[in-house]
């Protein structure tokens, strides 16, 4: 059974990839501005809510959950999983070009592997159902369970 995706569904998968990674990066940047939170300074968590980077991060993470659930309503979990993993690649690229961190050879190799994984599943069907086993077919033929 082949399930081809529409343009809107591809856009939802792109949203799954981008919202989680950009949201995490925004939260990281916002919390770096707010400062370290510990048991004695829990009030900082309240202050964090007024940081624009933290607010934008929260909005994007809500968007991630909404788009992730939408994707799961028409695609297999094993199809959506590599798309969520692609978020690690986006985080690595954001940390390199936005936060100016160094990308090691290991990380470049990791990015290449995840890109390959996304490529493996992207061309396949988005939803599959395993054919029933011989035993299950026998039960259906005999009429049991009707």
């Amino acid at each position, binding site marked *: 059974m082949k399930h081809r995706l529409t343009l809107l569904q591809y856009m939802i998968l792109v949203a799954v990839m981008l919202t989680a990674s950009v949201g995490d990066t925004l939260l990281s940047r916002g919390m770096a501005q707010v400062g370290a939170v510990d048991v004695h300074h829990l009030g900082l968590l309240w202050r964090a809510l007024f940081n624009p980077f933290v607010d934008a991060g929260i909005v994007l993470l809500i968007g991630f959950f909404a788009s992730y659930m939408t994707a799961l*309503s028409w695609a297999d979990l*094993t199809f959506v999983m590599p798309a969520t*993993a692609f978020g690690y690649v986006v985080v690595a690229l954001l940390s390199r070009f936005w936060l100016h961190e160094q990308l090691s050879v290991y990380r470049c190799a990791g990015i290449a592997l995840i890109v390959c994984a996304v490529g493996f599943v992207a061309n396949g069907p988005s939803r599959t159902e395993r054919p029933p086993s011989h035993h299950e077919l026998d039960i259906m033929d005999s009429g049991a369970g009707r």
Partner: protein
Amino acid sequence: MAVHVGSLRAWSCILVVAGMAIAGECLVAAAMRGLGDLDVIRAKSGMPGAIKAVLSSPLFLAGAACMALNFFAMLFTLSIVDLSLAAPATASLTYIGNAIAAQIFLRENVDQRRWLAAAFVCAGVFLLSK
């Protein structure tokens, strides 16, 4: 001996975190599969109708509870295990565990290509954490 006990405790915590994540994601996936295409539901009953349909699914609520437990288990794990071990280990175990659980419980046809993708994601996450 202390090292072995510490390492056993650390890996037990990592396994619990991964187990909670797998249970949460499979339950949410099963809930969404049962509801059908959310875009269609939203077109028919609007955004409030879609939200109501999701929130009234017991499988979704069980999945969300598992994800919440996963969050707190991860916080506990991070208090005894380094992030550099906990993050890639839980992520890798979750990807492989999800593929196995999807085949068994969600009856997905996890073919060779998807197994390869899960293995590549595990290796990729491990390398990214270096």
